């Protein structure tokens, strides 16, 4: 089966899951990104077709939301909070440390595909700031040293 065909099958499967659900586009996009790690450009016409929407409409929604990405992320995703409560406890410096240490800017992935660095605006951990989320796991009162330890832990986990 070609890549195009398998993508079509994947998308059709996800669309089917939301049959009868009103306003399903966001849920479908979540489904696609959960499964594929991103929403590939080639998926957009297929989603549009499946939901009876225009391509422009689907594209417009994908680009509106920060969460959806058009490229795969690295094997790990580090999200550093840059909002006020974290700023009050050194969050900006922590973000700078992450950039230096990983050698990438926010919204970029390290050359080896290991880590994607993302900015996030509040993780709801504001009483334990600064906060980061690593692969969906929340960490609070994070120092630069602790961030290093977390990232070193990833290197060990690498396949």
């Amino acid at each position: 089966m070609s890549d195009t065909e398998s993508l079509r099958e994947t998308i059709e499967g996800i669309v089917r899951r939301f049959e009868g659900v009103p306003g399903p586009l966001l849920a479908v996009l979540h489904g696609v990104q959960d499964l594929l790690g991103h929403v590939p450009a080639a998926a957009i016409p297929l989603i549009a077709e499946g939901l009876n929407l225009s391509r422009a409409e689907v594209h417009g929604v994908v680009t509106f939301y920060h969460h959806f990405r058009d490229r795969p992320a690295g094997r790990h995703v580090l999200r550093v909070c840059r909002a006020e409560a974290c700023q009050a406890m050194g969050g900006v410096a922590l973000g700078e440390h992450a950039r230096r240490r990983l050698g990438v800017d926010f919204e970029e992935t390290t050359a080896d595909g290991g880590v994607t660095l993302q900015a996030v605006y509040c993780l709801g951990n504001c009483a334990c700031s600064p906060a980061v989320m690593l692969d969906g796991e929340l960490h609070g009162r994070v120092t630069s040293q602790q961030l290093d330890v977390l990232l070193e832990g990833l290197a060990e986990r690498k396949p």
Partner: protein
Amino acid sequence: MTVATVYISRDASALSLGAEAVAQAIEREAQARGVELRLVRTGSRGMCWLEPLVEVAGPDGRVAYGPVTAADVPGLFAAGFPAVVKHPLCQGPTARIPYFERQDRLTFARVGVVDPLSIDDYLQHDGYGGLRKALEMAPARVVQEVTDSGLRGRGGAAFPAGLKWRTVLEQVADCKYVACNADEGDSGTFADRMLMEGDPFVLIEGMTIAGLAVGATRGYVYLRIEYPHALRTLQAAIDTARRHGYLGHDILGSGRGFDIEIRLGAGAYICGEETSMLESLEGRRGEVRFRPPLPAVKGLFGRPTVVNNVITLASVPLILERGAAFYKEYGVGRSQGTLPIQLAGNVRRGGLIEKAFGVTLREVLYDFGGGSATGRPIRAVQAGGPLGAYIPASQFDTPLDYEAFAGIDAMLGHGGLVVFDDSVDMAQMARYAMEFCALESCGKCTPCRIGSGRGVEIIDRIVQGTDREKNLALLAELCDTMVQGSLCGLGGMAPFPVQSALKHFPDDFRRGA
């Protein structure tokens, strides 16, 4: 010998500080020593500075130890744990810890106490008492009770909940909705999250009562994607409630139906604005809608919709169970009941403090918070999220009350307080407010979309000392334009932190060159 019960939070904040490792260490140590114990995972007591907090059931209530690390666990057992022991980490009875004792825990009464996923725990702690009462009352009576309680929306705008519900009740439609706003995008706020993780059934009960009151049969929770823990807990609780007949087409044999579905956001702050949230729930770009029509008249899928914040809805079961008069005994003036205050940022004892309206900012910052975490003087507090004003120390005697805050050109919003010490650069905070607005603007109106980016540039020029007076005047003008010319609160209120910084901390804008 009875088996000791040990409680450890599984709230995301507690986990972020190592609660899971502590729980595992306790189980390991107990096994190694042949000590039998029962480990219960709860929500958080909200005393974040004591997390990971470990509690043990004692004859006079629970006794607290904190903050506990996994490394402390062998020492605790060596001292006699889980029997109540003298130990440097022992905080005494949880209920006697001043931070906790001085609160008015109504909406959060069960959070940190019960196992959030146990419906038996919920029922044993007065759960579903409100729904049972509501099922015996005419819908209009339920709405009246909420109106009489004085409950105002806790999501930010403080609109009377009963009035909104009445509007929806009065609409004639084939279908109505309850949409719970769990987008909680404001920095410095986490009450919605703690409630959903610590007592999800109370939100489910509150939404169900809202549905019965206005004639809605379907509820949606719009939950932000940044809250994976809350998603898991709330989804599990919804499934449990349905299995036990508390959701579905025949609630408790009443013949009346209501069900709830969670819909995830996708990382857009603007989707917390109610009409943007409705657009997003319908699967579209989260662009703000023009008003009228109000969502209460024409909301989700064009149908009458109650849009309420998590805490607003979670306050309803108690109001029905104990009555409006009981709830109204708390609070001051037109701010009735309690506010879950979220104390965050540079503060020694950050956490969640549920307190009747009327407590002063100073009491919260110093009596509860213990001053700044760094030990330096507190210089400013941002209240009400990224669109809220910065409040200087000279105004710390202001009571937490919607009108009193409006009186100092500030807002209470969702009850988040972010503390900054004297190392803060208020010009940079003002710049950040504009930057955030530019980043999160839905793009529908020019003052917000274009103005916010311009604001960043102008502040940069002011700080650099380029045509400072001219640019200060320009910034003031820009703020006015945004306040007056924006369709919604993002562009309309983003100038508030800027204006307050300019007013109370003018020197910060005049430092360089």
